[in-house]
């Protein structure tokens, strides 16, 4: 987990995962395990008791937080073989979802994310129905068949750049996605 999350903190913008690294360098190694990165274990600096305060908070740590990390990385042999994504699958995904994997690094990130998710295979799910969402046992609300909305054509049309007599204007069909090489060329010049 550690390698991936630190790698992720570098590539994701705006998410401040930089704090942990700061903590590691500032806090003394007082016997509570800032274990070496190579063994892929990281634990947060712990407090002795309720009195020790955290660096950036005035509240003491909750008693329910375990003193020592309980995370156990899954050994490689329990996981299925790593998924390799062929180039045409990448192309297909880019067309279907209009996402952009951009560089080899982006692809590597994707493969690591898949590897991370592979850890779910270790869990025994025989006889357990898959879940759709955490709210799936809520009651589905049924609405009465009475008109409550509509009649706001003006408001909606204002949102569109191009309209003709109360119709939205769209190109004649789906504009085909440019080929991969052309896309790369286009994006090189964009502000992203």
């Amino acid at each position, binding site marked *: 987990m550690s390698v991936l999350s630190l790698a992720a903190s570098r590539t994701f913008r705006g998410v401040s995962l930089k704090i942990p690294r700061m903590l590691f360098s500032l806090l003394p190694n007082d016997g509570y395990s800032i274990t070496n990165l190579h063994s892929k274990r990281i634990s947060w600096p712990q407090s002795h008791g309720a009195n020790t305060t955290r660096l950036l908070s005035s509240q003491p740590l909750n008693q329910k937080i375990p003193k020592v990390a309980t995370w156990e990385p899954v050994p490689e042999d329990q996981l299925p073989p790593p998924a390799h994504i062929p180039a045409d699958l990448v192309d297909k995904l880019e067309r279907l979802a209009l996402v952009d994997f951009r560089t080899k690094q982006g692809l590597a990130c994707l493969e690591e994310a898949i590897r991370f998710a592979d850890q779910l295979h270790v869990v025994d799910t025989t006889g357990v129905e898959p879940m*759709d969402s955490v709210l799936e046992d809520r009651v589905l609300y*049924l609405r009465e068949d009475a008109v409550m909305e509509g009649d*706001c054509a003006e408001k909606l049309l204002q949102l569109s750049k191009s309209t003709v007599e109360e119709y939205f204007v769209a190109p004649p069909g789906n504009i085909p996605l440019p080929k991969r090489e052309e896309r790369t060329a286009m994006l090189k010049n964009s502000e992203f």
Partner: protein
Amino acid sequence: KANPETEQLAPQQLVGVVGLEIHAQINSSTKLFSGAPVRFSAPPNSLVSFFDASLPGTLPVLNKRCVEAAVMTGLALNCAINRKSLFDRKHYFYADLPAGYQITQQRLPIAVDGVLTYSLLGGKKRNQVMRKNVTIKQIQLEQDSGKSLHDDVRSQTLIDLNRAGVGLMELVMEPDMSCGEEAAAAVRELQLILQALGTCQGNMSEGQLRVDANVSVHRPGEPLGVRTEVKNINSIRYLARAIDYEIQRQIDVLQRGGTVQNETRAYDSKSGETLPMRDKEGLQDYRFMPEPNLPPLILYEDNASLPTGIDACQVVVVQKIKEGLPELPSVKRDRLVQTYGILPEHSFTLVNEDGLVDYFEAVLKTTKKEPRKVIGWVTNELLGHLKQEDMSVCQSPISPSALAELLELQETGHISSSVAKQVFQKMWRSPGKTALQITQEQDLGLVSDTAQLHSICQKVVDSHPDEVHAIRSGNKKVLNKLMGLVQKETKGRADPVLVRAILQKKTS
């Protein structure tokens, strides 16, 4: 692998295999997931809510009426209603689908495994009622997309979202049919059922009922052939023609040694042909995923199984819907046969034509004539004339009471049956004139004056001695010729019964 039975019949015969995908627009006041109104024509984009326009921050809220409509339709088609059904997202990009996905029920639809029973009039005289079945794989609730109007001149498409989000029931049928006629009969029966239930108005030309046909050909016993999808069919008549054309086209391709492409074709009603549609980008991958904003739809069997404390407005109870089902067309047909003693094929024709049952029953109210004698007039004379001029029953120039009057005249012996048919024609051309008026004006009344008949018969007998001799020698059939001559004299107004009796006496 070939079936020994078919080997004897026609081992090389290619037959068609037809499966239908039907989208029926639910007859509700508001859309499936939003409170915007549902109406056929309205100013563009005036029936669109923020959710239908797919603005961020909007969520789907399921319409109870749509659920009830789907359950009613499922029950009428003998489906198993799933107590729990799920909603999914089907993703594809098109300008008339603002969200980029359609909410549908792919994994677990609301109803499965049904049967649509329909009838065909077959046999040499097309008067034998043949019953057939189509298996309904599933019925699912889904959203409709908006409408795109293509402006080729300015190379743009105009989008109207009034239809976006309207509730649809998609009925998926197994490929149990083999030709256009069967498909047309099945769709007609479905139309009648949906209209009787009130869940869909079933008007194909207004897009309330959309039918796509999956057509392939194969030799019986062999695996199914490559199928094509035929779209853009706007009426039941075009459905039959499109399917038959496509079956023949595929047979021709195969017999020339070619292969049938798996493609989508559009029916062109002007030429009667199916033409390939704009090429879809290879095989579509819709990336189905569960709709995260909608928990499963739970239906309850009966009031006893309701959880305590639940709001009655918030539940759909299958038993209650079952009890409230109206009379279905098949039941109506049987009832007409039972009540009036008419033949099944007549009952079939009555129910098949909008308003004809009401017309028939209205005639029966004002005439003493037996239903079995009235039915022929309604299904042959009236319907025949209506079909010839492509008119509906409500446009008939002859009202039920006018027809009843005509039948009374015949029944009471004022006019003969052949004259009655003539009067019918004249009534058709001059609406408003009663049967009595026409009979009197044109002096078509039956001549029953025995003295007059006697003298006419005598004249005929005297002028045809050879025929009289033949009759006296035992050839009774020649009497009909003499009768024909008498009728010619009287312009068909002679009472045939009387004439026969008189002639028989004179030639004995």
